Structures are given as C-alpha cells and as structure tokens.
C-alpha cells in the first residue's frame, strides 16, 4: 500500500523529490524512547460536615488565582413528577433570576462585576449552582451564590421568560438530529420510568409548570442535609470552611423528612429491543445511536465498565477506528457509560451522511459484539488504559475540572480517596474482565438502535437487517411517552 503510494508521489514532480531526499539524509528512523516517568500527584481534598448536615469539601490548588465553588443538591431531574418533565431544571435555572432581595439583573450585575460566572443547572441525579471567580473575589461571589440557593423568589415574570426561552430552544433542538436522537433514546432505554424523560422538559410539559411546582422542588430538596459544597482552587481549607460556615452555617433543614425516592428501571432485554427511525427529511446528516441499560455508579463492575468503554471509545478506540479511520464514514464515533445513582445506560454514537446510516449502525453493533467474543490483546488493552488514565489526569488541570471530579464522587457517596486508587483499579482490569462485562452488560441482542435522519436514504438497507424497524415522522414524535408517537 505505502509503496504504491510512494510511486504516485514521486511521479508528481521535482519538488517531491526534494522533500523526500532531504528527509532521508537527516531523520532518525525510529522514535527515541521515553525517559524516566515523572510522578502524578492528585490534589488532596479536605472535608468537614457543618452541624446542619452540609458536607463541605475544599480542594486547594494554587497555580492560578481562581476558585470554583459548587453547591450540589443531591436530587436532580429524576425527581420530576411524571407530568412535569423539566421542573427541576427550570427551578435550578430560575435560582439566579431573582431572590427575595435582588432582581435577576442585580444578581447578574453583582457576579459579573467581579469578573465571575454563576450558573444553576440540573442533571439526572443532582442540581448544581456553580460560581467561578478570581480568588480575591470568592467572598462576595459566595454571598451571591448562597443568596440564590437559599432565597430564590421564583417571580412569575421570570418564570414566563425562562419558559419562553426554553420553548424557543426546543425549536433549535428539534431541528438538530443528534439532540433528537438522544432524547428519543432516553425513552427507548428507560421507557416511562423517571430517567426516560427529557431533563429540559418538553414543549408539552413546560406550559404545565406553575410557580408552586418550582417552589415545591426548592422547599423539598434544597436543604443542607441534601447538599454538598465543593470549593476548589486557590483557597486554603480553613478559609473555605469559614466561608461555608458564614454563608451556609445558619441554613436550616425543614421539619419534614427528605423524601426517599424509589426508582425502578427496566433492564434492556432481547424482547424489548427496539429499532427506531425518526424521519427528519431536512436532516443534513443522520445521527446513529446504539443504546441500552448498563450499570449504576456504585456497581462493583465500575472499573471493568470504564475500561471496556475505553476499548470502544476515544480516537483510537474500536468504534472510531472502524467507522472513521478505516472507512471515513464519520467525523467521529464514540461511546459512553452514563452511570447514575440507581441505574445507568450505555450509548454508542456517530453522525454520518444519510446514505450511510444503516452501515454505521451495523458497524457499531458489530464492534460492541466483538468485545464479548473476539480477542483483546494485552497490547491493545494497555494502550486503552493509558488513554483512560491520561484523560482522567487532564480532567483535573483546571479548577472547574477538580471541583466537578470531586463533586461527582461525593454525590454518589464514593470515598474521595478513590482518586488515589484510580490508577491501580484501572490497571487491575484484565482482558477477561472486559469480555465478561461486555457479554453480561453490552449484549447486542438487547441493544436498541435509534437513527434520526432523512429516512428514505437509509431505510431500505436498515430494513434488511431489522425488519421490525419503527419509523416515526419527526412531526409525530412525542417525547412524553415511551411509544414516542403522538396519539
């Protein structure tokens, strides 16, 4: 292959000869080997609990004069009532849009005058309010943050504006094949259970949300015994604890007990496997997903799972290698394990020209399947582990990265010093563990497929492989029910 290419290049003219001959005189033919490794030191968190139950974690790192503080509520969109999808997200968003003493504009003025940012968002298992500022400004920033967490006003005009903005956002979202595919996939995997709905809600659910619903989310879940404060960056632990005490020390828990949430979610089964096409004739590309349930964050298979996923995902992971590097079918193919409090999901994804939708779906399934049945040489396993470990370390280069990492451990109740065992835990995973995980958790016979794109370009090919494919025109898509179809 390379020889014949060289002939082609040489045939193109004299300039080429120059380039190749000069190189031949000078270049060393093999890469110089690495020198002795330098050791990695992860940041060390310090923590304490305030008397009201608020857990406070401070992670000092002094290279840059920046601090990130995140107040995390251990209840996210999974607590949305079934007919009020999006209420937790809307409540988090509205925190920064007015308190009992400050208007939305005054809050924005106060934080931005410091050069900082302040955002409230909901995820699946938590809602977070995060500020990032110069370390000299952390005190006034924390004051604003505490005010929005503790005293939001949920004014009607702010609710109406946030809702209108979200409704406009849906118009963009429904015109983007990758986003439609992810929203539909949640219903395919989790059905009508709480994780099946959209975190941001739907065009049907948002108009149903009333001020009382938002107040109710706040009064039920925003309480110190359901919260964790994580502060990272250029700050001493004693100063972090003093700020926590000052702004959250007199935050009281309500009399009522924190509701216990029981979430039962369906396991993916062969019988329940779905192949769903959302027909979006205007789509400039097809978004292809292979999805299924997987494991929760506290599952003993956690490290086996992340190593298995690293074999499939990443630039040189098997999915990207087969779909992008070898065949040029996509700008990128990847997979992820989303491990939540009581369950989780696995998703492989790629975008491709509409004509290749069916081919990319079968390539992705084939690679997932081969993980259980094919070879996994140690040479491949060790490089994928190195890639996983390197990415983990790079994720903690910034104050935001450090805070997110430790907040994630804390919210799932994982001991913070797991970070020091991360490398050893990853290295302990053997090829047989990866294969066993793939066989038990990533069985392709029970993995569903979702494709959003211009169906006429890929449906005939897809039907050959999956005669039971469901085709839903995008205008008939209903994200409010597991059927995905408007009645």
């Amino acid at each position: 292959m390379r020889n014949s290419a060289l002939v082609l290049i040489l045939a193109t003219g004299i300039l080429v000869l120059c380039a190749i001959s000069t190189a031949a005189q000078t270049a060393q033919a093999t890469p110089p080997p690495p020198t002795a490794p330098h050791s990695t030191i992860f940041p060390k968190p310090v923590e304490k609990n305030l008397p009201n139950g608020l857990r406070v974690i401070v992670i000092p790192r002094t290279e840059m004069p920046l601090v990130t503080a995140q107040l995390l509520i251990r209840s996210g969109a999974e607590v949305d009532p079934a007919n009020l999808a999006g209420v937790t997200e809307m409540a988090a968003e509205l925190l920064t849009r007015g308190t009992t003493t400050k208007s939305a504009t005054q809050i924005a003025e106060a934080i931005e005058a410091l050069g900082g940012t302040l955002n409230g968002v909901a995820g699946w298992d938590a809602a977070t309010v995060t500020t990032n500022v110069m370390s000299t400004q952390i005190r006034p920033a924390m004051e604003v943050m505490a005010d929005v967490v503790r005293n939001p006003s949920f004014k009607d005009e702010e609710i109406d504006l946030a809702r209108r903005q979200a409704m406009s956002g849906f118009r963009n979202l429904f015109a983007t094949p990758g986003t439609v595919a992810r929203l539909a996939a949640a219903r395919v995997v989790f059905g009508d259970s709480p994780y099946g709905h959209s975190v941001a809600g739907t065009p049907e659910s948002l108009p149903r949300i009333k001020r009382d619903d938002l107040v109710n989310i706040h009064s039920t879940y925003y309480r110190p015994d359901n919260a964790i404060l994580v502060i990272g960056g250029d700050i001493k632990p004693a100063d972090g604890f003093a700020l926590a005490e000052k702004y959250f020390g007199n935050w009281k828990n309500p009399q009522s007990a924190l509701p216990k949430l029981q979430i039962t979610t369906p396991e993916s089964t062969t019988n329940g496997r779905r192949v769903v096409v959302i027909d979006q004739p205007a789509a400039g590309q097809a978004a292809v997903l292979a999805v299924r349930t997987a494991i929760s964050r506290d599952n003993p298979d956690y490290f086996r799972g992340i190593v298995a996923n690293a074999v499939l995902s990443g630039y040189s992971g098997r999915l990207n290698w087969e779909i992008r590097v070898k065949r040029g079918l996509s700008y990128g193919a990847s997979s992820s394990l989303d491990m939540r409090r009581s369950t989780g999901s696995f998703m492989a994804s790629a975008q491709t020209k509409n004509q290749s939708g069916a081919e990319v779906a079968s390539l992705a399934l084939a690679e997932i399947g081969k993980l259980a049945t094919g070879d996994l040489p140690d040479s491949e396993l060790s490089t994928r582990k190195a890639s996983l470990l390197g990415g983990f370390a790079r994720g903690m280069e910034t104050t935001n990265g450090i805070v997110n990492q430790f907040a994630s451990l804390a919210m799932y109740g994982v001991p913070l010093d797991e970070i020091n065992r991360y490398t050893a835990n990853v290295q302990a995973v053997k090829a047989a563990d990866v294969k066993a995980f793939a066989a038990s958790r990533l069985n392709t016979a029970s993995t569903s497929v979702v494709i959003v794109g211009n169906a006429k370009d890929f449906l005939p090919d897809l039907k050959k492989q999956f005669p039971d494919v469901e085709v839903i025109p995008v205008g008939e898509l209903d994200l409010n029910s597991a059927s995905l179809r408007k009645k």
Partner: protein
Amino acid sequence: MRRCLFTLMGGAVIAAGASIACAQTKMPQMAFRDRTLKNGLRVLSVVDKSSPTVTINVWYHVGSKDDPDHRSGFAHLFEHIMFKSTKNMKAEMMDRLTEDVGGNNNATTQDDATIYYETIPANYLETLLWAEAERLASLTVDDENFKSERAVVEEEYRQSVLAPPNGRLFVAIARDSWNLHPYKREGIGSIEDLEAATIDDVIKFHNTYYRPDNATVVVVGDFDQKQLDTWVDKYFAPIPKPNIGLPRVNVVEPARTGEKRFMEYAPNVPLKGVAFTFLVPSTKSDDAPALRMMATILSQGRSSRLYQSLVYQQQLATSANAQADLREDAGMFNFTSFVANGKKPEDVEAALNAEIKKLQDAPVSAAELEKAKNQILTGQLRQRETSLGKSNALGRAAVILGDPNLVNKDLDRLQAVTAADIQRVARKYLTANNRYVIYYLPESERPKSTSINPSINSTKGGASR
C-alpha cells in the same frame, strides 16, 4: 489603575465610584525562552512543573486564507493529512505516540495559521519532538489514506454546516462580509472543492508552507530547558530551509462605501437570524483592545447591554452577541442575534441599531468598564490554567501578533482602554456606511421567482468550523 467592585455583607452593590480597595489579582507572567535556529525555526519554551506533562504546540503560519484557488477547505483537509504517514511513521503513528501513552493530540485550522498540539506525559517529550520534526520534514501520503481522510473532512462539513440549524449562517456571514479578501471562504470549504483536491495538491502545499522558517514550536510543561535545547538541535536543526519563496496573501480588503443587505434562505431554520458586520482593522491595530472591550460590554453575561435590552427587557431575541473577530490582515465586528419566536427580524435590527447609537452617544459607565476588565482578566486566567492554554496564548502572540512579549503585555493594553476609547471606536467603525446586514430566513419565505442570492443549501461557498 484597576479597582474592583465590592459587595457588602448586607447585599448592596456599591458602584465603582465608591469602591473599596480590594486585593489586586495579577496575571502570572509567562517567563519564556525564545530562540531561532539557523533554518528559521522559532522555538518558545516555558518550564511549568505544575503537572507532570508537556504540551508541544506547533504553529505553521498558513491558514484557510491560503487555500489554493478552487480548493476552499484545503488548508483544513491538509491539517488532517498531517496525522497520516511520514517517511518513518506509519499512518496514525502520532496517535500511538500520544494517545497510547496517556496523552492526546489535535490540531486546528484557523484563517491565519494552523496549529498542531499534543499533551503528553513529560517523559515522552523527546519522542514527540522527533515526531513533529518528522512531519515537518518528510510527510508522505498514499491514495487510500488521502481518500478516506477526505471523506472524514466531508463528514465534518456535514456535521458542522448541514446538520445544525444555524450552520449555514456562519458560511453566509463570511461570504457576504468580505468583498475581496480570501477570508470570504470559510475554512471548512465545500464538498465540491474537497472532492477536487488531489495528492499533488497535498505535496505542493507541504513544500510551499511546511518549512522551518514558517513554523514556531511552543513547548510548555515539565522539562529541563538545556535538555530541550539539545533535542531541538538534534531533530529540528538538520531540516533545511528551502530556497523557494514563501507566498503571502497580500489582498487588501477595500473600505466599505455603503450599507449592503443580504437575504439568506436555508432549509432547517427554526429561529430566524439577524447579523450585522462592520469592517474593522487587524488584530495588530491599536484599536484592537478597545474593540475587544466593546464586544465584552455589549454581550458578555446577562448584565451585558445586548442581553439586557434585546433578550431580557424587550424579549425580541433568544440571544444577542457581539464579537470582535480580529484577524491578521483585517477584522470584522459582528453582531449576531436569533429572533424570538413570533418576533420580527426588523425589530431586532432596530434594537441592535439603538444599542449602537447608545455606544456612540455617551461613554460607557466606569462600572461597566471595570466589569468588562474583570471579565477579560478572569477569562484569561481560565485560559491559562492548562499547558495547552498557555502554549496557545504564547504561540498566538508570536505568530499572529508578531511579538511573543505580547503574551504578557496584552492584558495591560486591555486594562488601559478608556470609556472615551470605546466611544471613539464605536463612532469610527459602527457606522451605517460600514454596515452589512444579513437576514437568515427559512427557505419557505424565499420570494417566488427571484433568485438574487444563491441558496446556501448548495455545496458552493464556504462553511463554518
């Protein structure tokens, strides 16, 4: 002299005029070594032992503006090919030397430069210097690799331009705004031009632009300076400087002589768009800091002027942004706004014009200016948290601004901007004669029987990255 706003315990915000002195935050200065080899290669290095990694950032002073004729998107396609084979490296060996040992790599093609980088465990520095020297000196490419990578770039085009609802708008803004300069072709190119590219083009482009006297190597991280110098001498010094000339784009974008209006229609436009573009000078101009400060005051954060007026109070738009898109040869000051459902683009246009008039009629307040300066300082601190961010800032100062010392002086220039400077640049550049207006509308609203502007649904014209 900077001041900071200070929030009192009671919650009242005191305006800048009555501000209390607070601790000054200083941008840590970057102490760099600057050397140029006999073959013209410039090497900038910063020892930073905060993490046991090193970032190598190689800047080639060639970008999308240098795309050959009828080869829009070529500089970017070429960037992808640089990850294929060299004389001594098989295709994708860069990934073996980075990803496989816990590092990562990527590259970006900008209008004025192409930047390749890898962040690697510190003990792989020598290995990667060898690899970067390899692809500078002896890139090779075979037909199969070329075609499959070209297909990848075509998928990148679809993913960034055709799939997202607003992808085509950014193609249109570039094409409509620049009259003469090759900046009018967006860097991602077009499917048609990508399909026309050949291996001959690749070889010619490499020989023309990928040469030591057109490259700047930036190294930031945990290494020994003397050791680095030795390795640089060993792997880069032998690469000869070619005798052929180095072509440069010398097109001067003519001054605008009156407003122009463009109606762009595209499929998949869920929210209409309104854009204004104003021709402004290069990023090297003395007016650049005031233009950047003006953009920050207009649209950074929810307390900014555009958000407050268009999104929050009048609720005409879902977003409203101002951007000083300053490049090496010239720049654009852009406004981009998406029209809220049920509102009219004409009303958004009028609201944007009102904000421009406000900037021209009265100086910005001391508090607004102070806020913008704090936002810019904080933003630069965030950028420089990582070795990649530091190397990008240093490389940009050296290659695009022409002086690596500006990595440390840039912030001082921004801090020196006054309210009068902002009023002056608003009056000088944001004029009706210098304004192009672009409406981005759904195909269904295209008037029947007229075809003044070609639809941007066609594969012609540029694309955004």
